[in-house]
């Protein structure tokens, strides 16, 4: 594929790359090494400069990176053999550090070095050490040297973005299909809420509540997704049998779905579900990639194959391009439309299950305005609202564009009302870029 063709197909990817570059430049800030790397650096600093320390206090928080740092530093310091310093370790909160300092002061010991992490170095418990604990002497404070790197480009942030957008991106697959057929689906946000409430309630009432088994939970989730699919089938039937415009049908189903979700949940969130239910939304079993993101990637792969390699995909484009011509050339228009609405509703159901899993509860308030974000992702991704054109990976790029803008603005402290204005303008700008590309 020639680069120019690639750009023509996925112009949005360029915009996405520019946004990433922009936010990387804006979030350039001090980072500090963590874990083993930090320990090696600090050990080296302690080895330098004249007298070797005899007493060292390692101050860390009770979290994985800090624990690894403390363990590695202890190992490195004890490797010095007979000249190894005596080491105490704090693992926890400032309160724990204070207790340790009090204990050391009471036993009459002096401290030569306090080895911190970036975070513990800022603890106020150490800010006035000489005055608070004069008997400890004047220890030197050592913490890993910081380097400059964008907050935006940290791997955990990039995974964070993918995880945040997974639900919208998955729902956008189905809505893309509907929009490619020339229709619209406004009910996805409500169906997402309905599915989250239904799955949570089924687990609470019928699968044993917080003691539910994985198989039971899976069954409840499938029932919830299936129920949403049935709503989609109903919408599809209304559209194909009675020729009611999709806008009206799905607007009605949006209200119905939301109402049923409120009724089923009695307006409350349903949270009596097992701890293990968060596996789908928050687990990361494969190469540190969150399961929801993995599922999203698989679904996009399948959707891409469906749309570009299979007969059904070509039929979806044909119906959207010109439904009358498609009918005359033997495309089963009604069945194709039914498929699109069922797929859209089922994927919204799946999105609801993922959201319930991420938040470990189902609530009728989930998914508010999601239909608009999803449609924005689809349109930003280059799919025409007139139907007949659009690509799955375009939609994915559109969803990521929205996620990157939101995350980037959160990281650069843009106030939340301004965020809405910027997001709206960027969506408009992205579509302008798309138009410019097409008319060139």
């Amino acid at each position, binding site marked *: 594929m020639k680069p120019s063709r690639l750009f023509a197909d996925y112009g949005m990817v360029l*915009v996405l790359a*520019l946004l990433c570059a*922009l936010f990387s430049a*804006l979030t350039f800030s001090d980072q500090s090494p963590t874990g083993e790397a930090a320990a090696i650096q600090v050990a080296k600093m302690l080895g330098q400069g004249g007298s070797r320390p005899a007493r060292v206090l390692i101050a860390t*928080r*009770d*979290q994985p990176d*800090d624990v690894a740092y403390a363990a590695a530093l202890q190992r490195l310091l004890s490797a010095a053999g007979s000249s190894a310093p005596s080491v105490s370790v704090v693992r926890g*909160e*400032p*309160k*724990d*550090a*204070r*207790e340790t300092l009090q204990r050391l002061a009471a036993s009459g010991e002096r401290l030569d070095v306090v080895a911190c992490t970036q*975070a513990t170095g*800022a*603890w*106020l*418990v150490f*800010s006035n050490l000489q005055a608070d604990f004069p008997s400890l002497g004047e220890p030197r404070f050592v913490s890993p040297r910081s380097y400059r790197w964008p*907050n935006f480009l*940290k791997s955990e942030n990039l995974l*964070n973005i993918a995880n945040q957008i997974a639900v919208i991106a998955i729902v956008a697959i189905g809505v893309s299909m509907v929009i490619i057929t020339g229709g619209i689906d*406004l009910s996805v*946000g409500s169906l997402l809420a309905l599915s989250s409430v239904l799955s949570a309630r089924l687990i609470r009432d019928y699968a044993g509540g917080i003691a539910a088994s994985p198989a039971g939970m899976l069954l409840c989730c499938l029932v919830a997704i299936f129920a949403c699919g049935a709503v989609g089938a109903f919408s599809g039937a209304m559209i194909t049998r009675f020729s009611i415009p999709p806008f009206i049908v799905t*607007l009605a189903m949006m*209200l119905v779905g*939301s109402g049923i979700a409120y009724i089923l949940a009695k*307006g409350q*969130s349903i*949270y009596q579900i097992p701890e293990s239910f968060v596996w789908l939304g*928050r687990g990361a079993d494969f190469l540190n990639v969150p399961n929801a993101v993995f599922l999203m990637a698989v679904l996009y792969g399948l959707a891409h194959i469906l749309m570009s390699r299979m007969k059904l995909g070509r039929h979806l484009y044909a119906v959207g391009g010109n439904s009358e011509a498609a009918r005359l050339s033997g495309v089963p228009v009604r069945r194709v439309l039914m498929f699109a609405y069922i797929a859209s509703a089922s994927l919204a159901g799946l999105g609801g299950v993922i959201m319930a899993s991420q*938040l*470990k*509860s189902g*609530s009728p*308030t*989930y998914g*508010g*305005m999601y*239909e608009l974000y999803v449609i924005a992702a689809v349109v930003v991704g280059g799919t*025409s*609202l*007139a139907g007949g054109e659009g690509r799955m990976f375009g939609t994915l790029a559109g969803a990521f564009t929205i996620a990157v803008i*939101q995350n980037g603005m*959160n990281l*650069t*402290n*843009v*106030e939340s009302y301004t965020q809405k204005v*910027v997001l709206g*303008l*960027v969506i408009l*700008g992205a579509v*302008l*870029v798309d*138009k*410019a*590309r097409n008319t060139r």
Partner: protein
Amino acid sequence: MNSLKPANSRLSILLYPHPILVKKHSLAKTLCLAAVLLTGCDKPAEKASTQSNATPNQGTIGVSLLTLDNPFFKTIGDTITAEGLKHHYTTVLVSGDKDVAKQSNQIKDFIVKKVSAIVLSPCDSKSIVPVIQEANAAGIPVFTVDIPCNEPGVKIATQIATDNFGGGKEAALAMIEALGEAGGKVAVLHFKQVESCQLRVRGFTEVINAHNAAGKPRIEVVAELESGGAKDAGFKAAEDILQSHADLRGIFAINDPAALGARAAIEKAGKTKQVVIVGFDGQPEGKQAIKEGKIYADPIQFPDKMGVQIVDAILRHSKGETLPPQFLIPTSLYRKADAEKDSSLK
């Protein structure tokens, strides 16, 4: 807590934009525009970072409040920002917009940013649990304000809220003072789903019961109706009460909007001389009504004191002090005389 559940926002779909025909535009021009917009909006952040270079920066406080369109929460947020700056903390203040999924994402962004402390008023005490656990696992202390999260399995450094029970007692004292020697029938406009309102009514009832038990002129609570903490529902509830108890003498409303709704009903019934209202909160509109004599008095809350208390709690936590599980900020009675001295009112 004095705000309503959000109305269903899905009807805003009717504003759905139609595809627009656009003239030819150069790619570069559009991108420049987007870039200017984004960098333009980023100026406050840049300023904050240069300031923190000049002084030793203690770190960042991430704050996500229930909403920022309620002056109560806005004041809490602004006070934290100002107070934090005094102690060399940078503050990131965002609004959860009553959307717990949005708030969860905000907290996750705080964790990635490695903030030194997180302050939040949960949009949903149950659904926020997983993300608080994530912050706990990352070793970042979490403070809650106004709305607590008392679920098992989460570690909250401390909770800061108004002493709603004490406030309810003060409301009862104001009611007793207003009714004077005669006593009489009073009604309560409740907002039962909200825990803070339950506490207010419990405090109110306790003092009224003690007053009656002491043999003073009897005050009888004849009705307890749901007001939803809103003007329209408060109006309807008060109208119904006036129908069934024509000789009603007083109404205690759990917040200012409900009190103002009740006032409208009383005005409509022409009973402004007969029925007194005691509200709660001390929002600007409520204070104005007190000045005009429409509401007798309010136990008022102090969101600014709450903000100061939060920053103080963060500092004490960082110094390694042991914090109590909650700080209660007392209310204070605000009557017409206070309103006349209040320079913030017209």
